[in-house]
């Protein structure tokens, strides 16, 4: 029986490599919590040999607020606003994951109008999140113009959300039992205009960044993730699909109205950074397809099936619900003791937490600039890692 507890200081001790050809010495460098590429507050301890990365030790926890402990004293409706603040770029999808699990566990059945609007909002948010990721990837690799273009388009989608929901970033809209508000009367018109606009914009993005020789050099054949390794590391979402594994929860375990729309699952062939990059651009196109099919066919009905002030009680047991956010599978594991209206234990299976560790397998052997490209292509949102 060997249980040995270690600390970070033990690992980060300067090693001596006397037998390397140029008499280089390996050294530890902190890519600390404040860093332009950190996407939040992620600390990476790098073991470098010159400019080549030998080992990456992520040290998360700089945004760990203890959401799971806090949620044990909040009712289910009150936890929804905390889920917004985990992966804030797919806030609506986080809300939906929790609402879905509570509804499955509590036996609350929603109606087609609620499900259609939820699907529409989730796909809009997926488009918005991928556009922001695209801009930030451009900024990380040095192309700041991409950032400005991405934020221009993100604001247009943000206005559509603001008409209906009232918030730009932390939505708190999809509740167990339905939605907070009904959609704005202008919603369908604006979304249809947006779909036409975004189709031309995606061509502009391709001209600006995807076809750029420098970007292709920096992304092609860098950080190849084989499908077996991706599954072993627990990656899901575009990272896994770019490696060739066709696991998309919208097709594997359909929820919402995804089984009534036609769209393709985007799969890559090689699993390098370029595949992860282009898979997300293609996913935007597929999301636009879904939006087009649903926007004119929202069935009528109420938008909340339970009374808003009613306390939801869940029978005793352990429940698990999951859905596909912009970054991967977000799962909600809920344990209820049957008596209180707060959960006994709630755990979020966070997609970013499981995607983060892929960097320990992908980065060694590449240079620092390639590490940046790999990290950007993994599309991490740090508060989701730390919860």
């Amino acid at each position: 029986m060997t249980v040995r507890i270690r600390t970070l200081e033990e690992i980060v001790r300067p090693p001596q490599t006397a037998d390397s050809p140029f008499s280089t010495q390996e050294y530890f460098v902190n890519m600390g919590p404040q860093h332009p590429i950190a996407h939040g507050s992620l600390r990476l301890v790098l073991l470098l040999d010159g400019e080549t990365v030998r080992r990456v030790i992520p040290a998360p926890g700089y945004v760990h607020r203890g959401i799971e402990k806090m949620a044990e004293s909040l009712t289910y409706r009150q936890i929804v606003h905390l889920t917004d603040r985990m992966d804030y770029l797919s806030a609506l999808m986080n809300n939906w994951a929790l609402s879905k699990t509570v509804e499955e566990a509590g036996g609350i059945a929603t109606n087609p109008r609620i499900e259609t609007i939820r699907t529409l909002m989730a796909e809009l948010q997926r488009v918005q999140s991928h556009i922001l990721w695209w801009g930030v990837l451009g900024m990380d690799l040095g192309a700041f113009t991409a950032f400005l273009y991405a934020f221009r388009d993100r604001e247009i989608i943000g206005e559509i959300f603001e008409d209906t929901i009232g918030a730009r970033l932390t939505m708190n809209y999809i509740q167990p039992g339905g939605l907070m508000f009904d959609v704005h009367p202008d919603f369908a018109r604006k979304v249809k205009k947006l779909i036409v606009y975004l189709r031309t914009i995606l061509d502009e993005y391709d001209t600006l960044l995807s076809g750029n020789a420098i970007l292709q050099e920096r992304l092609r054949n860098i950080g190849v993730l084989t499908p077996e390794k991706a599954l072993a590391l627990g990656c899901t979402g575009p990272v896994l699909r770019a490696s060739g594994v066709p696991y998309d929860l919208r097709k594997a375990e359909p929820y919402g109205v995804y089984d009534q729309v036609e769209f393709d699952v985007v799969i890559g062939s090689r699993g390098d950074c370029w595949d992860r990059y282009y898979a997300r651009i293609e996913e935007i196109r597929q999301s636009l397809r879904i939006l087009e099919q649903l926007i004119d066919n929202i069935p009528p009905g109420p938008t909340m099936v339970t009374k808003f002030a009613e306390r939801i009680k869940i029978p005793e047991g352990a429940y698990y619900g999951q859905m596909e956010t912009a970054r991967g599978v977000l799962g909600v594991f809920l344990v209820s003791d049957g008596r209180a209206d707060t959960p006994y234990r709630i755990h979020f299976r966070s997609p970013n937490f499981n995607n983060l560790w892929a960097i320990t397998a992908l980065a060694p052997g590449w240079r620092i600039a390639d590490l940046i490209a790999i990290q950007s292509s993994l599309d991490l949102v740090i508060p989701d890692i730390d919860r």
Partner: protein
Amino acid sequence: MDAEALLEVLIASEPAARKRDKTNRTAIQAPVENLLPLMKRLRQDERLAFDLLLDHTAIDWLAEGRFELVYNLYSTIHGHSLMVFTSVPRDNPLAPTVSEIWPTAHWQEREVFDLFGVLYDDHPDLRRLFLDDDWKGNPLRKDYQDDSMLARPQ
């Protein structure tokens, strides 16, 4: 493989495993001594082929004096999913590591070690994950005391 056939195959091959009720997914319960061979079989058997460990977490049953460890598995080949529950006593929380079978468990187990204090046998790098290395206590335990926590008034 659908849920009933899966459960039949599992319980036939592992006599100590039982079906667990009160969940909304296929779930079995196994004692912690038989956990490692069970997990190996779940990964390597071709009819089962659980190649993706989605999640590993723990529940603190303070009144019953145990931690319940939960493993959430999915098979991309067959498309079926399974939850495995096991229990370790609270005063001696020792569990085998499955990071040899699914490397993603390496970090999921570190998280459970950090927040609950469950010790994993033969874990390659057992260290705190989210909290400082010198933090005292395990926050997600039900009897965690901390002066800096502000309780919500009822």
